């Protein structure tokens, strides 16, 4: 699934034009704690979150996130949009809630790119 197909699937609204809509999404991760994202997410995932401050974009840059979905139709502040524009990461809002969105994406074949907590291996690999 690419970013454009993702947007269509969730009735999404794209906030930044610089995003590469053909970027392939390999799976998903849902979290509101940025450290959880950094600890668990694997590259090229879509990040579902209820937060919309610029740190969501920063975190996504570090964690090689392919697209960001803001749940429950949240509209991000201008500085978040500006940063997403600059970093060329798709910033999308969807009217649906976190559970609904995770379900829709999972049912459409996106697997989880969250590493479960087991403490043994390095999350960064």
């Amino acid at each position, binding site marked *: 699934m690419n970013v454009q197909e993702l947007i269509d699937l969730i009735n999404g609204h794209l906030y930044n034009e610089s995003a590469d809509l053909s970027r392939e999404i390999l799976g998903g991760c849902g979290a509101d704690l940025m450290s959880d994202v950094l600890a668990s997410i694997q590259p090229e995932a879509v990040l579902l979150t209820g937060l919309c401050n610029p740190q969501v974009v920063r975190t996504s840059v*570090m964690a090689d996130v392919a697209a960001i979905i803001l749940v429950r139709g949240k509209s991000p502040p201008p500085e978040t949009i500006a940063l997403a524009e600059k970093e060329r990461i798709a910033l999308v809002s969807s009217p649906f809630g976190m559970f609904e969105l995770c379900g829709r994406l999972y049912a459409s074949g996106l697997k989880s790119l969250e590493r479960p907590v087991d403490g043994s291996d390095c999350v960064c690999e």
Partner: protein
Amino acid sequence: MAPDSLFHGKIVTDAEAENITRVEELAYELKVGEVMTSDPATVTPNTPMSEVLELFRQRRISGAPVLENNQLAGLVSIEDLLRCLQKSDLDTDTRHYMSTNVLTIKDTDPVIEALKLFVNSHYGRLPVLNNTGNLTGILTKGDITSGILKAMQHDYQEEEVRRYRASHLFEDIESDRSSLILRYNIKQGDFTHGGAASSAIKRALLRLGAEPQIARRVGIAVYEAEMNLVIHTTHGGIIRVEIEPKQISINISDDGPGIQDVNLAMRPGYSTAPETVRELGFGAGMGLVNIQRCVDSMRLESVYGRGTNLRLKILLPKKEAGGDET
């Protein structure tokens, strides 16, 4: 064919879309004077059309400005020449065939103005005038195309050169031990720019030819540390990254307040972050744990009341970062 039918049913690829954008940008950036043909061949109203024919043939051009007393009097084009040939009238002066109602453009105008004129008129070329109204060149659509192509090639070469230089940095400079040091001052409480240094560091590593996985590990570790400086310090702090062909050493230091119990701080889930910070998605007590997971070695020293110093090291497998990617 209507212009908008050109892409009908065809999806514009990202590469194309990017180029279109850059072409559009260049159309605004480039000035007519930069892309026009300077010192064009000119004729006078008294030049016989047979000479115009000879001029066009020799110079391989399809039009020429007509000057009278150094002022633009008109334009003679290959279409005018064809009309003349049709009548076998080559002995006649140019004044009888040239067009006098000529659109002109200034050399200081952006190329986009010329494009608009070309689109809205049937003219194939525009005489270019300077501020004092004197002819300085002639502009065709071909001039614009090659001007933009040249500018894009220039862009491309610049980025190529930059990447090449960066990725060969450690090969090109000889010493017993070379390293590149990046320093960043981090402000306390600046949540808008918090993470900017980490982004810059990650980008620098990728440009130096580091494996994406190494850049990601460094990025995540430094980002957590950077946010700690933003959240917890009294006056912010300093991030220092030393890049060597075999390792990356990161030093994050601040002058207070320091950590009361380092062992407790290292425990997953322990956090002293205030509620406001937690609302931003931080302060889950996973920062130091995340850092440790991403690096090969980590040393945390802190004196309560004095400050904290965090040293991180990431070892680079052979033929990585440092730039020897070939």
